[in-house]
């Protein structure tokens, strides 16, 4: 057994190294806190200057209201409950569209990824559709489905579909043939090969697709709600424009930013948990 000692020593070295990495990571987290503080100095300064200039009347209130006015607007909406309905409605639309787009993308993407025939049949058409700017569909969807929820959700689903689909296909096609061979050596049938090798191997790519799909979902919900809605954050944008109240518009923009970031953060967390085996994620 003495012969293995070198190897075992080197294994100890590796664990030491990972431990060292962890310590360093704590350090970078710490300096990460510093970075956050450093990064927020400028925005805070700007907001203060903005507040002061607004109070001095340099920015006319009907064009750029003071930050406190905007916060007050949000607070009022929160108090009378409308804020939660708007946020709820918009979030529901995004998630419904996101779910629909993702499901269709998974089905089509898996087919195209797994079967050469399906690729030859579907992929050229999907690529052609991809070259259409998705917002161009809006009038058609409204014509077909009216101005209610279906057209909005379809709209968002179209936006979500493409990044998810493309990443699934490239993920599946990019699975290392060598790993598939290992699976075959263990006598896995096609179904088990997919479940135990191809799916886990293409998961990172799929999650990348989900995140960019969600980002597009938030973008498209704005477009969909601008087209006509009686509720939702996008409706607040229109409302603010029509009632000449920039504070409502800016409040809506801020809320979009917060919720969008929050939902991305959730996905990022999921990604981190499921992909802890990956090299790159440990580093970042």
């Amino acid at each position, binding site marked *: 057994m003495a012969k293995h000692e070198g190897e075992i020593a080197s*294994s100890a070295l*590796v664990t030491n190294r990972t431990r060292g990495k962890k310590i360093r990571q704590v350090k970078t987290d710490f300096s990460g806190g510093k970075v956050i503080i450093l990064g927020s100095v400028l925005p805070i300064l700007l907001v203060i200057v903005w507040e002061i200039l607004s109070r001095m009347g340099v920015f006319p209130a009907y064009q750029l209201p003071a930050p406190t006015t905007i916060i007050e607007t949000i607070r009022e909406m929160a108090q009378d409950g409308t804020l939660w309905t708007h946020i709820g409605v918009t979030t529901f639309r995004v998630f419904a569209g996101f779910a629909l787009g993702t499901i269709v993308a998974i089905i089509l993407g898996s087919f195209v990824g797994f079967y050469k025939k399906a690729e030859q049949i579907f992929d050229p058409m999907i690529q052609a559709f991809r070259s259409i700017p998705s917002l161009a569909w809006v009038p058609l969807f409204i014509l077909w489905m009216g101005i209610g929820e279906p057209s909005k959700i379809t709209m968002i689903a179209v936006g979500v579909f493409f990044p998810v689909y493309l990443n699934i296909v490239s993920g599946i096609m990019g699975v290392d043939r*060598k790993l598939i061979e*290992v699976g075959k*050596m*263990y*006598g896995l049938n096609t179904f088990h090969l997919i479940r135990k090798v191809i799916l886990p*191997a293409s998961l990172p790519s799929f999650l990348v697709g989900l995140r960019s799909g969600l980002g597009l979902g938030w973008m498209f919900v704005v477009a969909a709600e601008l087209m006509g809605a009686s509720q939702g954050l996008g409706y607040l944008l229109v409302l603010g424009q029509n009632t000449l109240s920039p504070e409502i518009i800016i409040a809506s923009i801020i809320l979009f930013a917060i919720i969008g970031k929050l939902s991305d953060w959730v996905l990022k967390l999921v990604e981190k948990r499921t992909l*802890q085996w990956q090299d790159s994620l440990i580093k970042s």
Partner: protein
Amino acid sequence: MSLELRNISRSFDGKQAVSNISFSAQPGEIIGILGTSGCGKSTLLRAISGLDSSYNGEIAINGNTTKEIRDTTGFIFQESRLFPWLTVLDNITFGLKGNKQDKIIRAKQYLEHVGLKECGELYPRQLSGGMAQRVAIARALVTSPEILLLDEPFSALDAFTKMQLQDLLLNIWKTYQSTIILVTHDIDEAIYLCNRIIILRGQPGKIDKEIEIKEPHPRDRGSKQLVEYKAKILDSLDLNKPSVKTS
């Protein structure tokens, strides 16, 4: 478990990679397939494994000539080919069937066997090349294959690790007595490990010579006998004369 190859040929796009290979292996024998790069060693091994079925000729394993992957055959590749999303332990249990608890017990046993008892929870990215190859060995052995196919399994490792793993392989072979087909381009490795060395030459690769190494295991790497065998092999490969091109 007996293995017999009868007139195996394999072409890729009309170009022959190996031609007319026949040999047989006795149960428990270690056979080395030695040859320069590109002479069809991997092609031959993939045919035996069943990963490739587009060859001509017959491969009989215990008299059975079906061209398919059998669960009595294990394959160790040049790269460890561990699944990066599974821990070391899960990688080893990957090919096992049955009760989860039993699988883990069995995997741990083999992990200890390859000297990595403490590493079950690590992910492949945390392993050195030598450790990863040890895990690959454990993964291939845990299903108790009767025939073990190895395709240049140690060629990417440093000289010391390589020697350790060669000894590990011998230990395992002594315990389980599987039939081993070892593809290599390392003459020392072949001489140290094999009972019989089949030398492939040319393109398409053909059997040039079979050399039996009668030294009992364990062998002394520097012994006079092994050096003589080496000279013999170098001669037959025309590599022993400086004037001849070696590429």
